[in-house]
């Protein structure tokens, strides 16, 4: 059954101006249409005795055996074979934003939760415009004030960005619950793998300026646990810091964890074949990323003093993932490390 084989994660490119729910429904409708269009099995046959006029004539009838199809299997009676598909959505995008939007089908929905628990960073290109301030921080809101912006230079902007990155770095270290004085923490920091593995307010891990042409500018932002409105507010605050004002013209997600813009399917390719191909292409990457993150998650947690509470959650994930690491092995590992330090 084609629908049962269709399971996994893939990314679509959500266009701006539509809600994410509609995108999900549109994908579901298209897939259902293609699945139902596939030729159905032939209807069952049944032997019935149909009366036909006897050859002798004169009104006598005799029964003749005939094979007739069973009408209960007729497509007009049975209806479409597939009526619904379980499609789940990953990190959402609001109406005005566009970009990579991860969807899961069938068993892939379970991987969605695991991906969420990996807390991987997302990368956005955010476009801004100096000189205006609106109530919802975007260029379609009600205008609040207009300012001059001639005094702004690229250097000043980058200075502000560095300040933002610095404050966010502090928040990052605080929320990732790592004891800074350990060797593990240093190694992770060198590799750049320190992340908050639980709930936290939005954190920006990296921010830089891609283009600067007054009054427009474009930033690339790597962030965690964010919302698109938070990014727009950030643009507004950058404007305020530069003693001017700014509105956000575009929020576009170019990367969500392991899915990049190249993997995302544009609207013209939302069909069964492309989606199957996309699932196959991304499968290996998703699996490796999940294993890597959860393995590091255990190592990270075991080294922190207050990490035992979170270990339970990770243990559950390990069970669900049914990775090679068994709980016995991890416990031994943890015990070993405890003994080393103690």
């Amino acid at each position: 059954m084609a629908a049962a084989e269709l399971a996994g994660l893939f990314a679509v490119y959500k266009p701006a101006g539509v809600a994410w729910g509609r995108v999900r429904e549109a994908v579901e409708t298209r897939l259902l249409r293609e699945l139902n269009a596939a030729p159905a099995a032939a209807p069952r046959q049944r032997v019935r005795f149909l009366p036909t006029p006897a050859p002798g004539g004169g009104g006598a009838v005799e029964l003749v055996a005939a094979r007739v199809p069973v009408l209960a299997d007729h497509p007009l009676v049975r209806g479409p074979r597939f009526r619904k598909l379980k499609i789940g959505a990953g990190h959402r995008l609001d109406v005005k934003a566009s970009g990579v939007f991860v969807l899961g089908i069938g068993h892939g929905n379970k991987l969605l939760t695991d991906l969420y628990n990996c807390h991987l960073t997302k990368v956005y290109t955010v476009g801004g415009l100096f000189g205006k301030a609106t109530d919802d921080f975007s260029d379609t809101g009600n205008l609040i004030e207009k300012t001059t912006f001639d005094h702004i230079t690229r250097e000043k902007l980058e200075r502000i960005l560095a300040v933002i990155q610095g404050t966010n770095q502090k928040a990052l270290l605080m929320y990732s619950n790592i004891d800074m004085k350990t060797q593990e923490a240093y190694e992770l920091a060198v590799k750049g793998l320190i992340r908050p593995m639980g709930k936290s307010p939005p954190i920006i891990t990296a921010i830089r300026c891609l283009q600067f042409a007054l009054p427009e500018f474009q930033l690339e932002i790597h962030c965690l646990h964010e919302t698109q409105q938070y990014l727009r507010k950030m643009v507004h605050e950058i404007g305020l810091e530069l003693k001017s004002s700014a509105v956000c013209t575009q929020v576009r997600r170019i990367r969500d964890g392991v899915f990049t813009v190249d993997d995302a399917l544009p609207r013209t390719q939302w069909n069964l074949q492309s989606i199957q191909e996309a699932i196959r292409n991304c499968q290996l990457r998703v699996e490796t990323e999940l294993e890597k993150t959860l393995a590091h998650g255990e190592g990270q947690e075991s080294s922190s003093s207050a990490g035992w509470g979170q270990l339970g959650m990770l243990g559950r994930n390990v069970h669900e993932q049914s990775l090679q690491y068994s709980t016995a092995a991890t416990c031994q590992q943890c015990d070993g490390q405890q003994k080393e330090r103690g």
Partner: protein
Amino acid sequence: MMAVWARPVSRWGCLLSAARAAELPRRLRSGGRPARACRQLARAAALPAGKEIVPGRLPACRRLSVGSRSPPDGAKDGSFSSPESNLPSVQQGQAKPEILPDLNAKILDEDWDDIPPSSALEVISEEEAVQIIAEPLLPIQSSTLREYVDHSETLTKLVHLGVDLSQVEKRQKAGQLLLTLDFEKDVKKKLLFLKDVGVEDNQLGPFLTKNPYILGEDLEALETRVAYLKSKKFGKSEIAQMVSRAPYLLLFSVERLDNRLGFFKNELGLSVKKTKDLVIRLPRLLTGKIEPVKENLQVFNSKLLRIRERHMFLAFLGRAQYDPAQPSYISLDQLVSLPDEVFCTEIAKASMQDFENFLKTL
């Protein structure tokens, strides 16, 4: 959406064995007489007995005529609908309907205890055994029409016409209605009427899928409504068009139609001719709610998105030329209605891949 089925009672079976006549499908509602609902496979000649295995408490099996079933005591409750009444009367052979009612009357008078029940274990001859047809019983109630379609003439003919029964069974009471109709008496006349009005043959299926209730309407009422529309100076082809596009139109009574037309004339301030034009092109305005504009808005939005993308692509390429005077003019019609591949290669002179890459930068 249930079809109530008559639970067969085995006692009647042995009484039927005396009948041995050709069975005909009978409507159960006829006068409260216990009608004999039967399968269609009856022979004219000496009918062999078939065995019907009755599950449950009743101990005996009866010798029945081939595939016949008997309803419960009609005297007790004579009014229930049964899908059997629409069994395809494939054999149009000799009918001896008079025998059955007489037998029924006689049977009612007899005392049931006089009849010795025959056991399921008694020995029968080979020929009789071969002639037993024991098919599973039709369910008493069901939420789909699948189980009944093979046994009901109306349903079979409707499926051959193209009616989508899986949609019909989802509507309120539509399935029940279809099962209780008799093809020869009611449905045929209405179909001929619809053809008269001007609905095409291949449109009958989709029409009935959207509006199965029309088969339950009174024929005179339908004709009155068409006459009303004609009196309002709608031509025959126009009426045909309206009815095809808005299947519910003929379900509205004359007053309701009048009110709605009046609403369009008065509230929207359109002249008579304009109202007529509008109604002919969009008869669903009459049948829908009075805010049908919202539906149009949604369609508009999705098209708007497509148009916006295409326009931005053209602007990016520098080909957005909408002034007819200039060369390489692109008409709005082309912008909107062409399929994607044609648009890319002809109008934008770029490949599909370029268009997709551009889409991903928006």
